[in-house]
């Protein structure tokens, strides 16, 4: 028998919070080493230009400056992208050749072209100002449709065009479907450039000595993957390359998953200078370089029958990937996955998706929460809304008609969805909104010149990505892995290879392991983030904590129980095995006679400190590593969100009166933590959909390089977010748990846009573009009125 404790499902306080609440968090900028120097970059002020001269003499001569390097000085390191660090996707891929610093030519504003190392950050900035760069500006291309034109300026002349990646994804017989359709909805949707932007910027600290090699403290979601790629690029063995995510990291949201040029330089400089080299990105650099995601145009068509059944979909997707110069994702892995996930929670049998990814003179797209799918989910859920309106159908009804009904489900393009319940989720959302009454209230409001609306979105959210998908896509494994090991005090260390940074692993993994071993979460401590002490793992990405890593910890803990039982039986001088014991309240208790019990701490002590007391022939120690791989090609949670709005048509301003999120966490480990993940995902979704936008002017200058211009919402800009659980345990994880939070922002833009359009029905407005700024809404109203 297992254990009789029940920590799983309890909203206990997080174990990581004590240090964070008193200022004892340990973030990258907090780490200081003897002889440390700091690194900073000279970045291009042009969107596209030849570098005709760089004069570093004055900067190099400034007291306190250790070195100044330009692209020519690092060319020998070689081009950054290798087979390992480029997605291995079906379709036609081109690969840019580039170095840690740009050589001869810069391709976006912010492109690093020289690096300065100085004794302190104040001196560093003095020196950066002294590097004199002469440019010869080149023609630029900023618009992805312009990028496709034959006469468009080229970022990579040897390519022959600006197409980075092209992929055609057909399924079923879309032509027949469109021939049979009673209604074809055809619309062009545009999602702007927006995304992650965590509160802690990127940073790293590289230290080198020839004995131990290179140690890199890095703000990263993927320490092992980074080590793998850094070692390859720097041509040093893994034994000489250690990557550590500091104990704490101030958010990532996808932006700390790629391998960046700056990180390569820190390593190179630490080796060259034999001094620890630190880099802390400033916010301007961050806004110029990372968190820029989404940015897609969808020309989407739906083939719909009179009864609302969607029988076919066509989509021409154009993604603006920027300069495509970051490793691992190279700007196009996101739009690819977004295309694969386009049909999402809908069951649409006939599909023709054509994805074109182009390069432009902007920063490379980086992953952002709702990886690649934010734009597509907006487009599809908007198109479904338009279909409902054309057929005079209720938006809930048309969604229920087309939602995945039976599980497991394999989508037309091959995405596996394991479990979920859309009707149940819609029922809860509608009940929370008092939907039927709301429609009455809405009609009355219209009579009185008020504009109230409600909008829904539905979809599946990735619950980790299995090896079956990740290996062919990214040459990386998807398994979850954890080592569970008792210490000599009877406490349990769980070592994971991921790098959690706010997701609450220290608590939720402690809860599940406590249950498996009959202990309290207080007895469990989770370590992570260090390639020299945790097992090789894919990283903290794609909601894989509660799905994969946590499941591995469960399996590893379970694997210890037979040995624990054997030791207990031996200590009790009885014949008994695992099934004869229950692990509860810190004891191994004999089920048939509960007075017979051994403290679990005693078992650990025997296994580690007094192995002479072990049963004859038993190996000492009490630890196990498990690799968890789900027996499916895809686990997902199925969710329904609804927004209720009031719009003020004179200004286009609106208020999100209510936001209701019905989410499926399978088996929540800590419901409070799950709610927090959903709140944060919705908040980022609202920020991205309504307020945030990376804006480039006609010269490719980025106009949103401070947080006064790139508007991450504050507490006054967001509504209260209501969360409702509708859990369907996954059949593929040991506890039924599902990952939660990564995909959440993708639910938001359609829910809010649908609500706005619903409110404005009497004015005949159609919303196709993001962000949903009041001015955009006002202009749509103006346009609709001038048509009448």
């Amino acid at each position, binding site marked *: 028998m297992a254990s009789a404790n029940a920590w799983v499902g309890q909203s206990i306080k997080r174990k990581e919070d004590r240090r964070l609440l008193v200022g004892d968090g340990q973030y990258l900028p907090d780490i200081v080493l003897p002889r440390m120097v700091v690194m900073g970059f000279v970045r291009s002020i042009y969107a596209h230009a030849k570098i005709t001269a760089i004069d570093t003499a004055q900067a190099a001569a400034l007291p306190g400056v250790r070195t100044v390097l330009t692209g020519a000085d690092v060319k020998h390191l070689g081009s950054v992208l290798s087979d390992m660090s480029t997605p291995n996707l079906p379709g036609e891929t081109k690969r840019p050749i580039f170095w840690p610093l740009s050589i001869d030519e810069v391709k976006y504003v912010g492109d690093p072209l020289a690096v300065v190392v100085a004794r302190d950050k104040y001196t560093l900035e003095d020196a950066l100002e002294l590097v004199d760069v002469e440019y010869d500006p080149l023609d630029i291309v900023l618009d992805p449709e312009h990028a496709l034109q034959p006469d468009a300026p080229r970022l990579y002349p040897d390519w022959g065009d600006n197409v980075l990646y092209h992929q055609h994804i057909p399924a079923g017989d879309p032509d027949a479907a469109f021939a049979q359709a009673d209604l074809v909805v055809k619309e062009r949707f545009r999602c702007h450039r927006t995304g992650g932007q965590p509160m802690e910027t990127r940073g790293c600290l590289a230290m080198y000595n020839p004995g131990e090699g290179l140690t890199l403290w890095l703000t990263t979601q993927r320490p092992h993957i980074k080590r793998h790629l850094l070692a390859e690029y720097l041509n040093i063995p893994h034994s000489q390359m250690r990557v550590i995510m500091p104990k704490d990291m101030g958010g990532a949201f996808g932006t700390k998953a790629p391998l960046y040029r700056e990180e390569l330089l820190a390593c190179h400089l630490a080796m060259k200078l034999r001094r620890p080299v630190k880099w802390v990105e400033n916010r301007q650099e961050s806004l110029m370089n990372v968190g820029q995601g989404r940015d897609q145009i969808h020309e989407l068509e739906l083939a719909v029958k009179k009864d609302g059944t969607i029988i076919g979909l066509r989509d021409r997707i154009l993604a603006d990937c920027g300069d495509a110069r970051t490793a691992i994702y190279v700007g196009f892995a996101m739009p690819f996955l977004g295309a694969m996930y386009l049909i999402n929670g809908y069951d649409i049998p006939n599909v023709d998706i054509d994805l074109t990814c182009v390069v432009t003179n902007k920063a490379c797209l980086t992953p952002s929460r709702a990886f690649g799918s934010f734009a597509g989910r907006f487009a599809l859920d908007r198109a479904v809304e338009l279909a409902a309106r054309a057929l005079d159908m209720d938006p809930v009804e048309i969604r229920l008609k087309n939602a995945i009904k039976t599980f497991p489900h394999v989508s037309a393009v091959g995405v596996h969805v394991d479990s979920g319940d859309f009707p149940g989720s819609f029922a809860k959302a509608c009940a929370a909104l008092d939907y039927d009454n709301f429609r009455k209230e809405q009609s009355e409001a219209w009579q009185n010149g008020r504009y109230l609306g409600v909008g829904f979105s539905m979809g599946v959210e990735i619950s980790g990505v299995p090896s079956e998908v990740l290996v062919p896509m990214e040459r990386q494994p998807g398994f979850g892995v954890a080592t569970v090991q008792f210490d000599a005090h009877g406490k349990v260390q769980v070592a994971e290879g991921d790098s959690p940074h706010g997701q609450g692993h220290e608590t939720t993994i402690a809860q599940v392991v406590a249950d498996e071993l009959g202990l309290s979460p207080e007895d469990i401590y989770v370590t992570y983030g260090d390639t020299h002490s945790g097992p090789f793992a894919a990283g903290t990405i794609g909601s894989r904590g509660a799905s994969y890593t946590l499941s591995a910890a469960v399996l590893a803990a379970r694997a210890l129980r037979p040995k624990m039982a054997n030791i207990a039986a031996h200590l009790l001088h009885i014949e008994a095995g695992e099934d004869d014991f229950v692990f509860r309240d810190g004891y191994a208790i004999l089920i048939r006679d509960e007075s017979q019990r051994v403290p679990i701490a005693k078992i650990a002590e025997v296994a580690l400190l007094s192995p002479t007391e072990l049963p004859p022939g038993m190996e000492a120690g009490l630890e196990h590593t498990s690799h968890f791989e789900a027996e499916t090609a895809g686990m997902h949670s199925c969710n329904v969100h609804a927004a209720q709005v009031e719009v003020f048509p004179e200004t286009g301003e609106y208020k999100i009166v209510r936001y209701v999120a019905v989410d499926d966490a399978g088996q929540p480990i800590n419901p409070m933590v799950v709610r927090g993940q959903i*709140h944060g995902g919705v908040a980022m979704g609202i920020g991205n959909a309504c307020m945030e936008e990376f804006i480039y002017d006609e010269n490719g200058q980025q106009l949103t390089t401070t947080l006064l211009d790139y508007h991450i919402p*504050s*507490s006054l800009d967001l509504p209260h977010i209501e969360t409702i659980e509708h859990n369907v345990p996954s059949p593929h994880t040991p506890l039924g748990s599902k990952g939660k939070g990564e995909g959440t922002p993708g639910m938001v833009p359609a829910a809010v846009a649908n609500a706005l359009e619903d409110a404005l029905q009497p004015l005949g407005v159609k919303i196709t573009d993001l962000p949903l700024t009041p001015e955009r809404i006002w202009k749509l109203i103006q346009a609709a009125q001038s048509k009448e």
Partner: protein
Amino acid sequence: MKRSIGITINGEVYEETVDQRLLLVDFIREVAGLTGTHVGCSVEGRCGACTVVLNGKAVKACLLLAVQADGASVLTIEGLARDDALHPIQDGFWEKHGLQCGFCTPGLLMALYEFLQNPKHSDEEIRTAMSGVICRCTGYVHIVEAVKHAIATVEALSPQERKEWFNE
């Protein structure tokens, strides 16, 4: 270019000779070594992660020169708890899961420390009090709950206890 100053941080006097351009936040983090105060926006202070209490008022330490705080009293996140007892606002954040990555948390706690001395109760007022610090993880929902929890705690304190928690 350099100047000798003395700043009292969490009751301890730090007397140092510093560059006149040194930001107060760097004095706190790098001279005093109190790294709980964070920097998130580099320029204009919008993120608020560097918020500290300067002579009783919550301010952004990245928008002050260290020399301006000569002779002043600064309270940082490290000075909020009393030995092992957490301040009511810290406790509220813990109880209600008001933090995830924790990076903005010190700034929020210090901004709310000032608010809690004379707390108001509406959601709007609570949200206004925390609007000077941007959180990217929580969507603020649990933070509002955390503040309400803290208000209840603070209002149940005896005058003496209240004085102890707020008279740094």
